[in-house]
Each structure stands twice: as structure tokens, then as C-alpha cells.
């Protein structure tokens, strides 16, 4: 088991930075009173944030990823999550193979 003090410090600092972001939201921001417009904005937050996280991976990486993303949306309205994952991975693999 090896542990470099420099790496340990770095991991600790990154942990603090990450935790600070999360705690500020849940403990401070969650207590702020909201008007109707901000409430609508908050309600849209899950969709807005999750979309922003994955959009580049689906839209900017190439044709296989974009097609697999489309497939996942279509299958996602009908099938359980596990099936969607299998279909999406199979589509990416197949398209990469087909398109070289």
C-alpha cells in the first residue's frame, strides 16, 4: 500500500472543493424563499442539469453515439433501464464496427 503525501493532500483538497459545492446547495440555498418563477426554474433543474451533463457525449462524439442516443430515447419510453443500457451499448458497438 503506497500513499504519496503530495497526492494525499491533493485528494483532500479536491474532496473539500467537491463537498463545499454540495453542502452550499443543500444547506444554504435550499432555505431561500422562492417566488413562482423561481419555483418553476427549480422544478426544471433536474432536466436542465442532467441534459447539460450528457449532451456533449451524445451529440458531439460522432454518428454512433448520436444514433445510440436516439435509440435510447425511443426504447426508454417503453423499456426498463437495464434494457435501454444494453440496447444503447450494443448500438454504439455495432455502429462503430459498421462505420469503421
Amino acid at each position, binding site marked *: *500500500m*503506497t*500513499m504519496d503525501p*503530495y*497526492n*494525499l493532500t*491533493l*485528494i*483532500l483538497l*479536491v474532496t473539500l*472543493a*467537491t*463537498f463545499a*459545492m*454540495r453542502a*452550499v*446547495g*443543500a*444547506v444554504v*440555498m*435550499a432555505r*431561500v424563499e422562492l417566488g*413562482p*418563477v*423561481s419555483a*418553476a*426554474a*427549480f422544478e*426544471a*433543474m*433536474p*432536466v*436542465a*442539469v*442532467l*441534459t*447539460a*451533463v*450528457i*449532451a*456533449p*457525449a*451524445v*451529440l458531439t462524439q460522432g454518428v*454512433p453515439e448520436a444514433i*445510440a*442516443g436516439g435509440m*435510447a*430515447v425511443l426504447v*426508454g*419510453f417503453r423499456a*426498463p*433501464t*437495464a434494457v*435501454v*443500457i444494453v440496447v*444503447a*451499448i450494443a*448500438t454504439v*458497438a455495432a455502429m462503430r464496427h459498421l462505420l469503421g
Partner: protein
Amino acid sequence: MGTRTQEFSAGAVAILPVLVATAPIALLFGTLAAAKGLSAFEIWLMSATVYAGALQFVAIDQWADPAPIGLLVFTALVVNVRHILMGASIGRAMTDFSGPARYASMFVLTDEGWAFAERRAREGSLTPAYYFGIGVSMCLVWTSGSLLGAVIGRGLGDPSAYGFNFAFSAVFICILVGFWSNWRTGAVLASSGAVSAMVYLLVPGAWYIIAGAFAGVGTAAALHVQGDDQKPDEHKTDGIMPS
């Protein structure tokens, strides 16, 4: 709402499909981190304490010897600014959480776990036991997967060659489909996705996440200002997560 044990298991069972997708990603992380020269213990420790999948991949990508502390801490702040939004949103549903439980819950916050917790809160109420059923099981899979990847990863070859790196996108798409309620959802999705992809292509670093998030949230606020006459039932109907 059931007993604590029932709630805990309900959370763990709900997140199961995500765990299946997380395992290969965790292996991949361990493999990549080991290739950058981190020891197995350091990799496990990072997964257990930092515990932020997207950030860990970005950090490992920028890792050098010696690792650039300033750059990595700044990256951590930028990549994780979205957690302020997530925490602010789910924090409102944590009415049953004690003060310490609230802080502890933020240690195990993940994008996927958060989305499942939001869904639970909208269907009824979110108990601490349900939340930690999600959080603890995801944390176990992520830490043990990274450790395993660090130890045996190089023997497995490149997981991205088999399309495994797309598993996370598929999970996120399922979650998004579950959040679909009406055309407004589509407007939020389209604006967030378009802005995020554009910023990703034009601006270096992880700013695309926060840019897309603000575009989507701004769209929702603008639509609300324009359409105050919407019916209440139209506003609150959420799709059912197909799982």
C-alpha cells in the same frame, strides 16, 4: 412509507439498474488512474472521498507528475458547481432529514442518485433511509469497482472499445425520459442540450455543464412568465420511471 429497512432496500432496489451500468465505468476509472501512476490505495481513497464520477475522469485526464494542484481544485469547483443547483433542489425535499443527515447525504450525492431521490420526492416523500439506500449502494459499487480496476484493469483491455463508456449516457437518457411531462420539458431539454454541446465545442474546460443548466432553467422561467394560465394538473404530472 415503510419501515427504515424497507425504505433502505427500496432505494437500493430502485437504483439497481444504475449500479449495473456504474460497475464497468468504475473499472474503467480504476484502470485509467492506475495508468497515470496512482497507487491502488490512492485510487480507492479518491473514489471514496471525492466520490464524483465525472470530476474524477476529468481530474485523471489532467493528472501529471507532480499533479497541478491549483488547476485540479479549480476544475473540481467548475465541474461540481452543478451540485449547488442539485443540492438546492433536493434540499427542499429533505424535510425529514436531521442537520447531520443533511451534510452526510451530500457526501454521497451523485447525478443519478439525485435524480432518483427527486423522483421519490415528487411521488410522495423522501425518507433519509431511502436516500441512503441509493447513496450507500452506489458508493460501494463505485469504490470497489475503482479498486478492482486499479488492481486488475490492465488485463481487461480498453472498455471504451466495446461501447461501455456510453452506458452512463444511456442511464441519463432513461432518467430524463422519466422526467418527461409535457412540451415544456422538451423546451428545457432542447435549450440545455444545444447550449451545452455548443459550449463544449467552443470553450475549453467543464463550463458546458453550468452553461447548459442555466439555459434550461432560464427557458423554464421564461415559459412560466409567458404562460401563467397553465392548468395545475398539467404542471405536476411526471412520467413514471420505466424500471
